[in-house]
């Protein structure tokens, strides 16, 4: 494994650890994750969503520019699916009535405004049929399905209560990758 990859895994693991510390409501998931760790897979690299927060679609951060309803938007460098920003959500919000996938895959994208690379979590929003709007496929850093923590070919709704119905994809900033 070369150095950049190790860095990436470091950062993801760090973010996982912070998530775990911050959010005890995810305990049941981490219980499951613990069991999975025992059998020795790459599970700890899978990111976890935090508790649901705001009502309206979450806005972009001030240090961002561009159109989050366009496939070209910087966060979407690894996406493959429908943009939640076109479906009643935003880059970091699920549309009404959908359930965010608690686990998902991550990629690394560079924010052109600050030049930094960030780890992006591509959580799916689940429980309704495909949104059908703004279908994008960019696939940067995506791996085959047997390398799940970095695979965008998987339906990540598998981790939800709602079931596997895939509605759209978000692109949540987890933290800097460098």
């Amino acid at each position: 494994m070369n150095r950049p990859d190790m860095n990436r895994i470091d950062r993801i693991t760090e973010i996982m650890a912070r998530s775990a510390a911050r959010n005890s409501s995810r305990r049941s998931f981490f219980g499951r994750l613990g069991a999975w760790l025992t059998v020795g897979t790459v599970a700890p690299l899978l990111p976890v969503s935090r508790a649901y927060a705001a009502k309206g679609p979450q806005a972009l951060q001030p240090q961002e520019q561009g159109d989050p309803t366009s496939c070209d938007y910087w966060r979407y460098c690894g996406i493959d699916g429908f943009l939640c920003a076109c479906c009643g959500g935003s880059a970091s919000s699920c549309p009404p009535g959908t359930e965010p996938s608690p686990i998902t895959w991550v990629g690394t994208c560079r924010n052109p405004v600050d030049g930094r690379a960030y780890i992006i979590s591509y959580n799916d929003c689940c429980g309704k049929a495909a949104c059908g709007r703004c279908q994008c496929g960019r696939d940067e850093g995506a791996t085959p399905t047997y390398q799940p923590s970095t695979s965008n070919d998987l339906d990540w709704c598998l981790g939800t209560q709602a079931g596997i119905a895939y509605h759209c994809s978000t692109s949540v900033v987890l933290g800097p990758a460098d």
Partner: protein
Amino acid sequence: MSAQPKSGRDLHRAALAALHGAAMALAHPAAADTPTRPPVLQPETLSVVELKDRMQPHWVWINDISFNHMSDGRAYLVDADAGTMLGMISAGNGHGVVQILPDGKTVAVPATFYSRGMRGKREDVITFYAIRDLAPGAEVSIPPKRIQTIPFLNAEPLTDDGRFSLIYNFTPEQTISVVDIPARKFVGEFATPGCGAMHMTGPRQFMMQCADGSLQVGQMSEDGQITLGATSATLFRPEDPASERPVRIAPARYLFFTYAGEAVEAGVKADRPALIARWSLQGTDGAGWRPGGTQPMAYHTASGRLYVLMHKGGPNTQKEPGSEIWVYDVAKHIRLARLPLDHPASSVAISADAAPLLYTALFGSGMLDVRDPASGRVIRKIAGIGSDLTVIQPSPLAEATP
């Protein structure tokens, strides 16, 4: 689980080491930042959007029957002012309408499901969704007999007060299922042989269209029981039937229209169906034009104006989309305007408020056009809204509320 786990010790060790390193990096998160660079983006928490408590005047529901994938019917909720999709409801096989409660806070969605997608055990249910969260709530089982057809509004109406839901069944026996909305409870099934479609004409009264060209009154008791009332004479000839897609032009009056373009106003007076007026949509200069489409007419109560999708065509063109919208003063039975469309439309609707928006859609296009009702001019187009759009249902609320 009976296989030995693959040894993952190396990966596990790597993860633990990384955790350790990460904890150290965390102590100096901004160490690498130079003063000239903007601050690092903050880690985000994924949220779920919630909407306002009730529908706003320019919010609109649109049915996507998904003709090539009829088990995956959808109801899209769109903000016509912003030009955005607000959300969606997955509504199963042969999706018809959403029943918007009068306060605009809840929709009841009649839907049909099979245990194996396209086969197996059939279940029909009404599911309640709050506008605020569009999440499936209470569910009421109804007889698995909902009519499966190209959707039209009055196949599944509510009483005006939102107390009862009426479901048109066709098996081919014709019956109506009644659901008590506040009680979330199935009331009963009532035979309406030879007649179908329920056009509400009073708090507990509706009019049906019958195969022999007559209209028949249905009466509801306060506990939701239906009894059949008086029948009219034959109002429509077999050669020129009336569409089951009329518009309501007064509490107890509808404007029906025939395939050939006759406007027939009929209602209920003293509990009897009554013919009120007959006039021609073509008028004196419209020969060769006909109404057509999936939702060919819209009526704006406040202005008394009727909007009709018209196309050039002869017999058997009742499904053809309109190339123009013809605008009428219903009270005077006169045409006020012809609005040419930039592309044909198979459905038309208008918002209920004083500054209304006109909505059109073409089956197969997946696009809602928002138009100025005075000129027909496109204000905005909202694309990617499903594929096979049929029924457009504007907000029942004419006033904006928080």
